């Protein structure tokens, strides 16, 4: 029998250490906090699932969760169709392609807090171009006082920032469709809608799935922009889970409930991503996963 050579494990050691330091240890710290309570002096005692029960039963958590779900739902409902529409309208060849791609990529290059600051200033009624413009036009707009205005501002800001991502993903899927599909559709007398429904949509489904997942995760975890623009207000109107969590952990220093909430938050994201993925790929799996041929 060949002797086992265990030296290879030493080679993996740096990665294991890195992962332990960057992910496992912090996560376990959170798990640790979530099941204990402390009155300071670094003294902890076991409380079991108490914090989880408290968080899950608190109205504050429910409201924040609903707000976050609503925000993500609206973001997906706007950005996905809009992204597809823009990708469809983009030129397929010529100089226009590069121009469009650069324009599309621009918002993606701006840091989150800068985006927040831009819109915070842009929307201000006293000096902001948008806020002042709307006020001059006689429209009552104030994102610091009006819930609807605050939500609209955040939604428009996110659409402006992230629709490009959906566009770029869809566009890459669209240009990969061989010309012959369009020719066949033309010969079959297909309408523009039929071409979209039966050729383009099925062919971009895979990239669209990635777009939906990315946009869902990002919007569900959104923190920086609403923090900069509205700070969670007016009142608690834009206090999403992430903002609530930070208030609890850093503002109030309630480590136990904050840790429990983090874990619940994490599990919700994981669960919803799994649901999205399963639903959107169910068709493929249902029919013996036939990926043979016809893909490109």
């Amino acid at each position: 029998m060949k002797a086992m050579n265990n030296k290879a494990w030493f080679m993996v050691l740096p990665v294991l250490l890195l992962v332990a330091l960057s992910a496992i240890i912090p996560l376990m710290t959170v798990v640790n906090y979530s099941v204990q309570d402390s009155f300071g002096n670094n003294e902890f005692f076991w409380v079991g699932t108490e914090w989880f029960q408290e968080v899950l039963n608190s109205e504050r958590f429910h409201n924040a969760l609903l707000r976050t779900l609503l925000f993500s739902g609206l973001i997906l409902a706007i950005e996905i169709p809009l992204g597809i529409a823009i990708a469809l309208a983009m030129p397929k060849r010529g100089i226009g392609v590069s121009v469009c791609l650069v324009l599309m990529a621009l918002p993606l290059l701006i840091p989150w807090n800068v985006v927040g600051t831009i819109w915070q200033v842009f929307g201000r009624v006293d000096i902001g171009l948008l806020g002042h413009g709307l006020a001059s036009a006689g429209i009552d707009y104030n994102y610091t006082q009006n819930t609807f205005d605050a939500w609209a501002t955040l939604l428009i800001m996110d659409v402006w920032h992230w629709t490009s991502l959906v566009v770029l993903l869809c566009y890459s899927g669209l240009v990969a469709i061989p010309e012959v599909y369009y020719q066949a559709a033309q010969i079959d007398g297909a309408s523009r809608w039929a071409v979209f429904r039966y050729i383009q949509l099925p062919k971009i489904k895979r990239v669209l799935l990635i777009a939906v997942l990315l946009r869902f995760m990002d919007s569900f975890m959104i923190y920086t922009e609403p923090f900069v623009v509205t700070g969670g207000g007016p009142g608690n109107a834009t206090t999403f889970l992430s903002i609530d969590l930070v208030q609890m952990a850093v503002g109030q220093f309630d480590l136990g409930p904050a840790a429990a909430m983090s874990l619940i938050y994490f599990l919700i994201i994981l669960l919803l991503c799994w649901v999205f993925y399963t639903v959107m790929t169910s068709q493929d799996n249902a029919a013996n996963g036939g990926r043979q041929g016809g893909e490109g």
Partner: protein
Amino acid sequence: MASIELQQIAHQYPSTSGEMPSYALNPLQQCWQDGGAYALLGPSGCGKTTLLNIISGLLQPSEGRVLFDNTNVTALGPEQRNIAQVFQFPVVYDTLSVADNLAFPLRNRGLGKAEIAARVKTVLDMLGLSARANVKARNLNADDKQKISLGRGLVRTDVNAILFDEPLTVIDPHLKWQLRTELKKIHQQFGHTMIYVTHDQTEALTFADKVIVMLAGSIVQIGTPQELFEHPAHTFVGRFIGSPGMNILPCEVQGTQILVGGSPVATTALTCAGLPGLELGVRPEFVTFSETGGVAATVTGIEDTGRHRIVRALVNDTKICGILREGESLPAAPRVLLDPARIKLYQHSHLLAGQVP
């Protein structure tokens, strides 16, 4: 169904570099009869797909007119021309079932439900896909997908012509033969005008009543498979059709003697003595090896194809190949004999006039 006439059709693709674009298709005049089975045969890049797309309406020719049954359809798209086209790679609508794929062109044309169902059923039976009518099309293999592509054309009763663009490229060899036979059967049964683009001579010769051989954007010969074999109008046709292709040997004519590399190999009745650029064409099937007569040859190689053997030899440094049938043997000092009745003379690649079939 319709006859198709091309009047002075030519095509140039727009140039990307700004130079004068060259013709992808040189001006040509051609008429295809209603109900005929035609093959466009030529090497890759000879313009056959361009020509096909001009007929179907996917491409607007830069010059000339396309007539269907004497009606000018040049400006019409493929859906108005009522053309069916099968492409090199099978095109199916992935998310639709086999039956829905076949119904697709009919639904787009707004036919009634009952009529669609009846026609789809007929075509499903014809293609042997009834058992899988409700399977999603993406789960089929390449040849069944290609059958669906064909079926979407057959399901329409009003098609003027069915065009095929190298439809069997991605099909397994043993299924190619089967599909080709089915195509032939469908052609006999329904009498559609069929135009079949291919670079495979076997496909072209077995499928078509008439084969159009193309080279570098021009038609070099149109004829039945037999005509192309026996009377190639161009050395390209001789070389391209047949396996191995025709021997094309540079030659000189002195009086009535044809000399290859200085040795007389045959005589000719044509008055072409002294013309420049003469070539002699003879198919390997009509080259025999014997101990006497003819000219001396050095054998350089023998390939056994099973049915017969191909002998490659040199006659005064000119390559020639001939066929040894089963049972024939090669003499120790072989001399090459050319069948005088089967010799063709070409000048600058074109058949010299006066050599009637």
